[in-house]
Structures are given as C-alpha cells and as structure tokens.
C-alpha cells in the first residue's frame, strides 16, 4: 500500500539543539563522517490504493496548516511505495 | 495455529506446553493441572505464568510480609490496610490520604526513559484506583558509580522519564533521593512514590460485587507493550550474555493518563463505580482475576471486545499485555450510560467487556469460545507460597568483627579538605541538575520540596492542613546489619517528618533485594522485614502497603539490601512548618542527640572504600522522644530551623544549612573529626533565637535528649574551630559535581 510522506524540518536559520546534540554524540562515538546534523519529523499517511492528485493536494494543505509550523519549519511531500 | 480452547485442553492432555519459557517451575505447572483437573489452555497458562511470577504473587516474600499485619500497631488512623492497591490513612477534617512506593527497576535498566516514565504512570494509577486525586510524587533513585559510562546512559534517561511523565500529568515532584554505589551498576533502582488525597466517603476498593454488574475497560487501547515483561524481566536475574529484552518494555503516554485521571475523578464524584482496579503488571490477567477474587468470585469476559491498537494480537498476548494507562471498573448497568458520557467528554476509549456472575469461576471467551475457566482466587491470591531457605551469609560475622580503618581529619587544613570532599561527593552534592527537571509548583500546594528534609503539600486551602512525606534508606547499614538497618531507616524517615513539625502517621516501603533463591539474600530480606515490623510496632506506625523487588543482581552478585522506607505525616497548619535552614545571623545552633564514633557504613567510610564494621544499634524509644521534642518545640514556636543529620553526618548537615540561604555559621566542636564525620542516628541540628534557649533546654530535659550548643549563625563562611571555609568555595564544591558528571 502506498503512502504519502511528509517530512518536516526546522528552517535552516532556526537553532536545532537536538540536531546539535546528535552531532556531538556521533563525534563522541567515533563517527567522524558528519559535518552537521539537523533533526526533523516524518509523517506517514496511509491511503487506500494509489494516491490521487487530490489526496496529495489535501496532504499538502494539512502539512501547511497542521503538520508544520510555517514560522519555523519547512516541509516536503512525496509519495512512497 | 488454532485457538486453544478449554474444550481442546480437555481433549488433548498430553500437549507439550512452554511453561518453563514463561517462567513457571515444573511443580507450579503440575499444581495448575491439579487445580483445573486438566492441562491449562495457552491463555490460562499465560495468566498463571504472569500472576504467579515473583513480581505479582510475592511468593518468596509473603511468609515474611505477614509480620506487618501480625505486628501491626493499633492505629485509629488506618482506614485501608495492606492488601489493597494502596494504604489509606485518616488525616483529619474528613480527609483521607493514600500513598505507596513501587519499583520499576529492571525496565529502567533496559530502557531508562520509558522504564522510569511507566514506573510513575503505574504508581499514579494505583493511587487513582483508591478514589484519590494524585497530588504529588517522589523518586528515590539509585545508580552505579557516578562516573561510570553506563550511569551516564541510565541516569539522564531515568530523570527525563520521571520528569517527562510526571510533569505532563501535573504532579509536583516534592522530593526523592539520588544515591550512587558500585552495587547498583547494572541494577539501577527506580522507586516511585505517589500520594493522593480524598474525602473518606470517596474511598474505592478493588472488588467486583453484584452479579449482573458490568466489567468496563477504559483508557488506552491494548497493544503489544511489555508482553511477558513482568514475569520475564522481574523474576529472573540478568544474564548479560543473553539477547536484549527490548520488546518487552512498556511505552507510556502521559497525556492519555492525564485524561484518565480527570475522567476517573469525575466518574468517582458521581459515584458510578462499585469497584475499580488499574491494569499494571500482568495487565488484564491481573485486573480480571483480582476484581473477581475481591468480589463475589465470578466473572465472565469476552476478550474479543477489548479495543486493540494492534489487531494481530492473540488472546494470550492480550491477556499478558502491559499496555499502559488502562483501568477496569465494575459498573451497575443503569449507571453505564453516564459512565460512557464522561469518557466521551474526555475522549477516553471505553468498552464493556464482561459482567460479574453468581458463580466462582473467571470465564473468558474469544469470539464465543471458552478459552479461560479458572477459579480466580487461585490466580490472584493463592499463588505459590515459598518458605525459601535462608542462612546468615558468611560476610556478616567477618565484617562485623572488623573495625573500619579510616583517617580522621584533625588540622584546619584537613578539616577543610574533608568538608569540601564530602560536599562534592556525588551522594551528597547539590542535586539541582536533577530536581530542576521536575515541576514542583503545579497544583499550587507545594509547601516544601527538595532539598528540605521532607516534601510537604497543603491539602486544604482554608484550614491549611498539610501532609509531609519522606523516603529514606541506608544500604550500607542494611548490609552490615539488615535488622538494625531497617529500624534505622524507619527512624530516619520519621525524624525527617518531625523536623518540619509534622507528626508521623504511617509507613510504606519498597524492598529492593537480590535473588530470593540465594539463602544469604533471603536472610537479609527476612531480617529486614523483621526489623521494619518490629520498628513499626515500637513506633506506633502501621505499614499501609508497599512493594518488593527481587532479583536485583547481575549473575551471582546481589545488590546491597536496600529497603526504602516512606513515612507520611500530618501538620495542622502548613504555614507554621519549620524550614531546614536559617536566613538570619545571630541565631544559636544546637545539636540534639548523642554523637558516638559511628563511622562504619558512613559516607566517609564509603569514600575511602571501607565497608566493614558494625551498624549503629537503633534506639527507637530515644528516637520517639526526639520526635516528641521536635513536635513540642514546633508547637511552642521555638525553632527557626531544624535539619536532620544522616549521610555525611554533621559536615553534610552544616554544609546544606549554610548554603541554603547563604548565611554562614561559626561552629566549635570537640573531637572535631569524629564530630563532623560520624553518622550516629537520632540527631538534628536546630537554629533558635538565643532567647528561646532555656525553653529548648527544658524540653530536652523533659524528653531526655542530649542538647549541646555547637555555634551561631552569621557571616559568609562556614567556620569550624580554626578552619574557615568561604561560602563561595563551599558552594562551588557542592554545586559543580552534577553538571560536571552529567553535562
């Protein structure tokens, strides 16, 4: 069953203390790969069958109105199999 | 796999069943077959396995715990005693207060945040089930060494979990303990206390009475949380080579519990329930069998009616699920509509899943097929009772015969070094790093909280009636002498109530021990319970209930015996309470009680790796006289401040007093090293106006308690004989430890 996924991230200029904490923890554990880390949220919305354009539009509206706070966050909507 | 019904069990007696994997011993399995006259169905096997686990059945401790009833002192204040979800005491003015401590040790080692969070959730529901509004929580916590990497994994998660859940419920955290010791590495102790208040008429009990009354499940939906958590986690020791038990941990939702609290209180206010039980360890298995046992004895439940979060769960899993935030009520049919209405208002899921019957069987069906048919008492109350072998361990005589070898400070430099070392010791250092993660203000009735000797909450805004609670334990003393250790912890908790001016009234306890299959541990447990029961009888304080946590050990190494004693007291007017410290100069400081060379089991000994010697001998008659002196002095308003001395002795006591409001003290002591470091019990430091000294001396004579002036308040240093410690330096030592360790 396909799902519509919404990923919400803090805007780049907003302080992300959780991301910073994760980055420090990675470094302490010896993972030198990360220059920086930002933490966000992922919403998985299950729909019946293949998502229609209208359903995706609904989710985009929901993302703007509820799932994200446009003052401090941005979002991306995509369909995943 | 086809459903294992009662009929199927009857017709297939030789089916092999995984009783051992579920934690049952062969003789226990045989007994179940005897009770039922056939092999159990898999659902029945699941029920018996969780309910007969150590954690639920208390099979190793029952024979000893009955001393609390047998030796119970007569107390007019006790309204509900041992046996119910929590004890209830009368505090006057028509109010009843219920309180209890519980443990959630093993889950907190596995998943610190959720383990601690669900620990709070569980004890709060226990209080709620008595019909009370929960009004405060406390958390006695014990961890491995402060600088150990695993402590850094476990402590922050546990503190965050307690705060995360308790704060969201709107319960002020009014005190607790944080203790570090190698003994708890791998076995942190997370004990949670909750106190609630109600009017006498509100008291609810866990009984299903009245054939035809409905069994109603409300709260969160049931999922796969903690399946087998109880019997798998708490009844076996950890073998660190086995795979992690992660899937068995419950996950809490404090928001749902907050709604459950408000919903339940409205339901209680309209008198809509006949009996009520919360779903904790062993979930539905426990709630149904306990409610049925407590009432007429018969109940019918349709398990398929249980609202599920995870539709793939089997009946066995539903019965064993420990999904949080669920309660089970017995409701008369004509009251059900209103019950449902209130649940709807609070958006709480609610379903009638069965009814009370006339018979004496608990019958559970799944889509019409009978999968459980048991006598409920055999599940809930007639579990195995073990008289485990016990033997005084070899170490006792050995350590008791050794004299602890310690360097005692003499010079001003050595004194200063010792005082600063103790001030910075993780067990004694400032705990703000922890306590500032807890809301102490919510509900607006907190009179005192950490670092005061006890937590105190106002329960009537007009009359200013209040209650005070303290929890205490001393594992070092319990290790050296479990019998005395229990008495000493009881006396300390009661003394901590009295320093504020409240009168001790009742006791709860959380007994944390190693494996009961170890005769030495069993001996420690038996001696502890004997000491606590004897102590409670001597002090006139009934045990209202409590909790036993066994199997706190990794491999063959048990934790030090750690009985945590909680004492509740009453104060008529919270506005008159005596704080722990002074905020003015010019007061006299007096030490009440006698100081001996009691260094065995002290923090000073611990810091030097010394565990030997003898514990002090509790003198409960003297402790009671001291309590009466404190209460009389409080009534006569002669104390500016009163602070109990415990771990860290006079050194820690003075440190805590001068740093509380940044007013120093000038102290003169003879035999200064011992005076500062000894941890003789039954001692309190009081600050009084010089004009009231004669009143104090008179009280001391009347109550036969030694009093000795040790100094005066004032200045910006703690001066002991010729040793001057600047308050800033002392504060720095005291407050840097936790931020340095935990960031």
């Amino acid at each position, binding site marked *: 069953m396909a799902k519509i996924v919404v990923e919400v991230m803090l805007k780049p200029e907003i302080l992300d203390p959780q991301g910073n904490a994760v980055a420090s923890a990675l470094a302490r554990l010896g993972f030198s790969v990360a220059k920086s880390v930002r933490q966000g949220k992922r919403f998985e919305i299950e729909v019946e069958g293949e998502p229609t354009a209208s359903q995706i539009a609904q989710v985009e509206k929901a993302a703007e109105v509820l799932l994200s*706070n446009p003052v401090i966050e941005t979002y991306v909507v995509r369909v995943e199999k | 796999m086809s459903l294992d019904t009662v009929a199927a069990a009857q017709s297939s007696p030789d089916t092999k069943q995984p009783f051992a994997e579920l934690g049952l011993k062969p003789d226990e399995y045989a007994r179940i077959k005897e009770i039922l006259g056939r092999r159990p169905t898999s659902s029945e096997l699941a029920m018996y396995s969780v309910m007969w686990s150590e954690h639920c059945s208390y099979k190793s401790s029952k024979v000893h715990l009955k001393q609390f009833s047998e030796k119970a002192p007569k107390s007019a204040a006790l309204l509900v005693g041992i046996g119910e979800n929590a004890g209830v005491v009368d505090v006057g003015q028509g109010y009843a207060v219920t309180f209890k401590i519980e443990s959630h040790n093993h889950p907190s080692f596995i998943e610190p945040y959720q383990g601690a969070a669900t620990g709070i959730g569980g004890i709060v529901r226990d209080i709620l089930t008595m019909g009370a509004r929960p009004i405060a929580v406390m958390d006695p916590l014990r961890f491995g060494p402060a600088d150990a990497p695993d402590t850094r994994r476990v402590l922050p998660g546990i503190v965050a979990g307690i705060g995360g859940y308790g704060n*969201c419920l709107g319960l002020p955290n009014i005190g607790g303990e944080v203790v570090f010791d190698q003994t708890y590495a791998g076995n942190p102790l997370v004990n949670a206390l909750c106190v609630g208040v109600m009017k006498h008429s509100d008291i609810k009990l866990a009984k299903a009475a009245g054939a035809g009354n409905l069994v109603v499940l409300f709260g969160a939906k049931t999922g796969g949380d903690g399946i087998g958590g109880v019997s798998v986690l708490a009844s076996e020791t950890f073998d660190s080579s086995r795979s992690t038990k992660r899937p068995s941990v419950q996950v809490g939702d404090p928001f749902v519990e*907050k*709604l459950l609290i408000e919903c339940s209180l409205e339901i209680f206010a309209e008198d809509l329930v006949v009996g009520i039980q919360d779903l904790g360890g062993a979930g539905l298995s426990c709630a149904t069998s306990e409610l049925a046992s407590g009432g007429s004895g018969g109940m019918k439940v349709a398990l398929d009616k249980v609202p599920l979060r995870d539709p793939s769960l089997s009946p066995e899993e539903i019965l064993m699920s420990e999904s949080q935030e669920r309660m089970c009520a017995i409701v008369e049919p004509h009251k059900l509509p209103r019950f449902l209405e209130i649940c709807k208002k609070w958006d709480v899921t609610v379903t009638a899943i069965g009814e009370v019957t006339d018979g004496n069987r608990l019958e559970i069906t799944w889509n019409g097929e009978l999968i459980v048919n048991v006598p409920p008492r055999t599940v809930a109350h007639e579990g195995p009772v073990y008289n485990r072998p016990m033997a005084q361990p070899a170490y006792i005589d050995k350590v008791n015969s050794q004299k602890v070898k310690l360097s005692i400070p003499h010079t001003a430099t050595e004194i200063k070094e010792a005082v600063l070392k103790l001030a910075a010791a993780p067990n004694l250092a400032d705990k703000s790093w922890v306590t500032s993660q807890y809301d102490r*203000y919510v509900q607006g*009735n907190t009179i005192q909280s950490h670092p005061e000797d006890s937590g105190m909450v106002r329960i009537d805004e007009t009359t200013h009636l209040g209650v005070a609670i303290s929890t205490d334990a001393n594992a070092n003393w319990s290790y050296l002498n479990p019998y005395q250790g229990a008495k000493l912890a009881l006396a300390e908790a009661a003394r901590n109530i009295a320093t504020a001016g409240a009168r001790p009234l009742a006791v709860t306890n959380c007994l944390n021990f190693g494996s009961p299959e170890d005769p030495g541990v069993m001996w420690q447990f038996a001696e502890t319970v004997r000491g606590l029961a004897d102590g409670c009888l001597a002090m006139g304080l009934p045990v209202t209930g409590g909790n036993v946590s066994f199997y706190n050990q990794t491999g063959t190494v048990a934790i030090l015996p750690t009985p945590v004693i909680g004492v509740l007291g009453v104060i008529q007017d919270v506005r008159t309470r005596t704080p722990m410290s002074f905020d003015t100069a010019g007061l006299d400081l007096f030490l009440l009680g006698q100081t001996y060379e009691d260094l065995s089991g002290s923090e000073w000994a611990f810091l030097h790796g010394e565990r030997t010697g003898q514990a002090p001998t509790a003198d409960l008659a003297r402790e009671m006289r001291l309590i009466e002196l404190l209460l009389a002095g409080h009534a006569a308003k002669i104390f500016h401040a009163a602070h109990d001395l415990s771990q860290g002795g006079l050194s820690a006591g003075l440190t805590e007093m001068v740093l509380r409001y940044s007013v120093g003290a000038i102290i003169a002591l003879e035999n200064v090293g011992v005076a500062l470091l000894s941890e003789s019990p039954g001692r309190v430091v009081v600050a009084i106006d010089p004009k009231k000294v004669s009143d104090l001396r008179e009280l001391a004579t009347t109550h036969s308690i030694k009093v000795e002036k040790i100094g005066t308040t004032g200045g910006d240093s703690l001066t002991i004989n010729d040793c001057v410690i600047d308050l800033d330096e002392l504060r720095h030592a005291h407050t840097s430890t936790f931020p340095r360790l935990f960031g």
Partner: protein
Amino acid sequence: MRVGVITFPGTLDDRDAARAVNRSGAQAVLLWHGDTDLKKVDAVILPGGFSYGDYLRAGAISRFSPVMNSVIEAAGEGMPVLGICNGFQVLCESHLLPGALTRNSDLHFLCRDQEIEITNNMTPWTTTFSLKERIVIPLKNGEGSFQCDDKTLAQLEDEGRVVARYVGENPNGSRNLIAGISNERGNVVGLMPHPEHAIDPLTGPTAQGLGFFTSILNSMVK
C-alpha cells in the same frame, strides 16, 4: 469582573490560574475547549500545561479547538488575552502572536525561580508594574525558547512589544532573552514564566506574580 480560564485536554495550571484570578479580586470563569461560549467574560487566560501532551508541537492541536475561534474573534475586538507558557504556545500557533516557542536549547525541562524584568507596563496585564520592575516567578517548561525571524524581532523591539525579558543567564535560548511579548494592539500577551505560581510566598518564590492579575482588574475597572 469575570476572567475566563480555558481548559484544554492536558491543561495543568488552570486551577492555579483561577486561584490567582480569584485572589486578585476578580471572578474566575472556567471555560471548556470544546465550547465556543466565552460566557461573557471580560478577559481570557490560556493557562500552562501540556495540552494534547505537547504532541506534534506544543499548542499545535489546541489552537484548532472550538473555543479558540471565539478567542481569536474576541481578541480582534480588543478583549485582553493572556497566554501563560503552554497558553503562549497556543497563541503563537494561532498566529495571535508572532514567532514560535521551541525546545529549550539545552534540551532539558527546566523548573527554576526566574527573575524577569517588565519591559512594557502599558498592556492590560502589566499596568500595576513599574517599567523595568524586576520580579521573581517560576519558569517551568521544556519548550520555552522564543524564536522568530530577524524582521519580526526588530519589529517587536522597535514597537516596544517585548513585555518581559529574562534577567541574567538565558535559561532556554530565547532570542534577545524574550520572556513575553504582546500583539500590535497590546491586548494579547504571551508570557513563558508562571505568575500564577507566585501569588503567595507559602507556595511560591514570591507573591510578585499577582501583579499580572491585579493589572487586568484595574484595566477593566477604568
């Protein structure tokens, strides 16, 4: 004078806010989130707590409650509204106030007796304070870091709409140490710390929080 106090599912400090209102001499009126009727109150308080468990974002779900439609309408007509802590979060999510409250910068819940300075005493909630008066009231939250873009920040500062500022070390990473702000009109105020828990030295650090509640009484009496 009637002051409404709203209860959302999960609100915790409603009874404390009501107590403070009654203590000030006004009459507290409890309002239910699902009810659009504001019961003819003269002012509204959105109290502290964890409405909807702070799930999704603090205040994000509460802002869609039926009662909030009435509050937004009334605020537009000038009714004084005070959002304390979670209430402040709801006001920001409702866009009655600009900016947003995010996770404390050190990631811990923090409960402390916090000194703040009153930097705007013209709002109906702060008239009894003198300008730059410093008071100590409890701060207790996990998501108290006030964030907004530079333009909004400049606007708030220039228009004197910062109502209170933290004194001393920044407890949670709030921009410009902002502890409280108002809308353009000045009738809607959001405050992170809890004045309702500082109305009696018996149960709080001071009684200095009472000023917020006596202010509204005075403002309406005029």
